[in-house]
């Protein structure tokens, strides 16, 4: 049975009511490092960043949308033919690996033999063997076309023939060598399909079971699980663990009863204790499942958020219990800190803006072994930022004002 866990306001209020220090609620605290990462070099620019992940060596991996999300006239004059600028700038390679001090240590990505590079990448994850998985999230059709993806990133002039819709997931070795592709661009299937996807947004791995979980996606409304080696279909489910239904449920209404279907499942993440966290982005919620798809609980995040919604992606805190869930919210420009047991929002990091520690379109989040937080911004944010973990302390007010 579906059980909604309401967000406890009490935890939040206690911080402001002079509760003795010993009893005061504690939350992870962070401080932005304005000088991380180091300048990319080569006059490279990030496009809209869609995925970040930390590998076993505490290296940070990022994937971004490259030239298609950068302004050809004003931003990447060195890439024009003839070049319109003398010294700057160029799109960085799609996939970059940073060491812990923030230096680029490798880069690759783009079209190659034997696989279909995404029209536009989505989430990225690194598995226990160091392989890099990328969801092919696709781009919205040109203005006027059909589709319900993220706001335009400048892709598509509307004059050229539209490329086949992204409907696949890619697996590469850490050096960029192609290993596996699940699905095929253009070969879309609905939410009950067993061989096709439709603009998947994110992936995560269950190393022990050898399974890959896919959030599918911008068009489909489900989580689907495949064998991580063969790509063979295993199982799938929709919101509340039920059979997904692709019927149009219209735009999100904060006042309406909770939707029975996902509206853009935009992340999937497995905790160490075997739970599956799914971002139901445009429904402003996180749904939690067992690995077999049994619904466990859900939590709403900034429930009044409309448009792209509040729950874009998640990461777990670095403690063995993974006590906290960090939720990237590219609409309210925050990382929400959520108690993983109660699913209460206890604190937050960030605000809107283009200064260090501020966000525009913070859509991806990852945590390293020391508990430091990394964020990637899409839209015109186009930054990778690091927030150093500063231990447990007084929470920031998580909800100053809900939109009315």
């Amino acid at each position, binding site marked *: 049975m579906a059980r909604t866990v309401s967000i406890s306001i009490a935890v939040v209020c206690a911080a402001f009511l002079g509760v003795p220090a010993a009893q005061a609620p504690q939350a992870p605290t962070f401080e932005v490092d*304005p*000088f991380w990462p180091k*300048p*990319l070099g080569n*006059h490279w*620019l*990030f496009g809209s960043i869609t995925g970040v992940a930390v590998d076993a060596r505490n290296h940070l991996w990022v994937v971004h949308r490259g030239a298609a999300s950068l*302004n050809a*006239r*004003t*931003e990447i*004059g060195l890439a024009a033919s*003839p*070049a*319109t*600028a*003398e*010294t*700057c*700038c160029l799109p960085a390679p799609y996939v970059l690996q940073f060491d812990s001090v923030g230096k680029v240590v490798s880069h690759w990505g783009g079209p190659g033999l034997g696989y279909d590079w995404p029209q536009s990448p989505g989430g990225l994850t690194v598995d226990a063997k160091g392989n890099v998985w990328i969801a092919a999230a696709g781009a919205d059709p040109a203005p006027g076309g059909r589709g319900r993806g993220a*706001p335009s990133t400048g892709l598509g002039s509307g004059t050229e023939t539209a490329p086949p819709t992204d409907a696949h997931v890619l697996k590469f070795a850490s050096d960029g060598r192609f290993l596996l592709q699940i699905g095929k661009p253009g070969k879309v299937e609905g939410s009950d399909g067993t061989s096709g996807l439709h603009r998947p947004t994110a992936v995560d791995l269950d190393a022990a079971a050898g399974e890959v979980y896919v959030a599918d996606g911008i068009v489909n409304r489900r989580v689907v699980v495949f064998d991580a080696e063969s790509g063979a279909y295993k199982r799938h489910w929709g919101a509340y663990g039920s059979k997904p239904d692709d019927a149009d449920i219209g735009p999100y209404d904060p006042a309406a009863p909770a939707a029975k279907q996902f509206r853009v499942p935009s992340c999937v993440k497995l905790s160490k204790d075997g739970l599956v966290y799914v971002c139901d982005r445009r429904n402003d919620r996180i749904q939690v499942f067992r690995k077999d798809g049994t619904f466990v609980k859900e939590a709403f995040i*900034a429930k*009044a*958020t*409309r*448009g*792209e919604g*509040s729950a874009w992606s998640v990461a777990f805190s670095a403690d063995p219990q993974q006590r906290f869930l960090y939720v990237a919210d590219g*609409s*309210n*420009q*925050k990382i929400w800190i959520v108690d993983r047991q109660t699913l209460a929002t206890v604190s937050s990091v960030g*605000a*809107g*803006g*283009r*200064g*260090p520690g*501020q966000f*525009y*379109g913070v859509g991806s989040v990852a945590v390293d072994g020391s508990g430091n937080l990394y964020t990637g911004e899409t*839209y*015109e*944010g*186009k*930054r990778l930022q690091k927030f150093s973990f500063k231990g447990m302390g007084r929470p920031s007010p998580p*909800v*100053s*004002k*809900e*939109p*009315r």
Partner: protein
Amino acid sequence: MTTVPTRRTLVIGAAFAAAIGLLAVAERLLVREASAQPTVQAPRFAVDPFWPKPLPNGWVLGMTIGVGVDSNDHVWIVHRADTVGAVEGAADQIPPTATCCRKAPPVLEFDPAGNLVGHWGGAGEGYEWPLSNHGIFVDLKDNVWIGGNDAKDAHILKFTKQGKFLMQFGHQGKTGGSNDTTTFGRVAKIYVDPKANEAYIADGYGNKRVVVIDADTGKFKRFWGAYGAKPDDTNLGPYDPAAPPAKQFRTPVHCADLSNDGLVYVCDRPNDRIQVFKADGTFVKEAIIAPKTLGDGSTWDVAFSKDPQQKYLYVADGKNEKVYVLDRQSMEVLTSFGDGGRQPGQFFAVHSIATDSKGNIYTTETYEGRRLQKFVFRGVGPVPRDQGTVWAR
């Protein structure tokens, strides 16, 4: 347990040692290369990543299209609030789609610590707010001047520091070309000479000239085109680096700033050059900067160093994403700092530049850069020719 090295581990060990040796050699070479890199004596800067302080009220900036510093070292900016879109300006929507963000008022005043201490701007009684505001200047009488570069903007506005409307020169939609003596054509920037009480107008995106007006009455005093000649509005076509230097300015004429020794520095942006004139419009000299730059051009705005001689000229280049440091006498580019990117000290379309009394530099970015940044002056010293991103550590 004691391990006896096997032949294999010895081989690996030897290879490792050799590799270390190679690394050491490589490192020495790198050090030599670094120390051999030519340096030059020039003002040094480091970005202050935490200046200004976060704006209140969830306010965000649109294209930030002008910066000026007043006599109290307060920093003034003007930005295009209406360029904040529905996604970023979610809290401004009806109903709001998220708790953040809202567009900040167009004119913002910061104290030296980076606190927002004043804000105003937008439509009001008795004047025509520009459809696309452009450039801000605070004169020594504490008047705030603003231009506008929309196709219909043909006027200049003057306010008090509190935002009280004082004067409007010219009218929206009424332009008469580069030889007209009562109208303007999409003004980019204003600079007021307190001694002569004259305002120098970079005019602009429509016209191709510098105009000097009486700062109180707005009466035209003189104007000139490139090389001090009569301006001509004939379309020159796009800039071609291989062609002889253009005899006319190409639009936009983007700045016209006066030095203490009475010279006027004009940004002829798409022509990639700064032209220098006497105050009466007599041509003195020019400097070509990054001449292969096409499109928007390389010379977006200028500011002077704060030593009494104004020994250095700072030129913002929003196409190559850097600030050039020129020797003002020789007009030689000594060094440059900055690079493309969204991190502190990097730029996307660095549009405007100003200096305070301590020699610190402030920049604003248009397009999707949309930031105000501060570069702290760290004295004159040896710097490489291309400094890249200037971080203190």
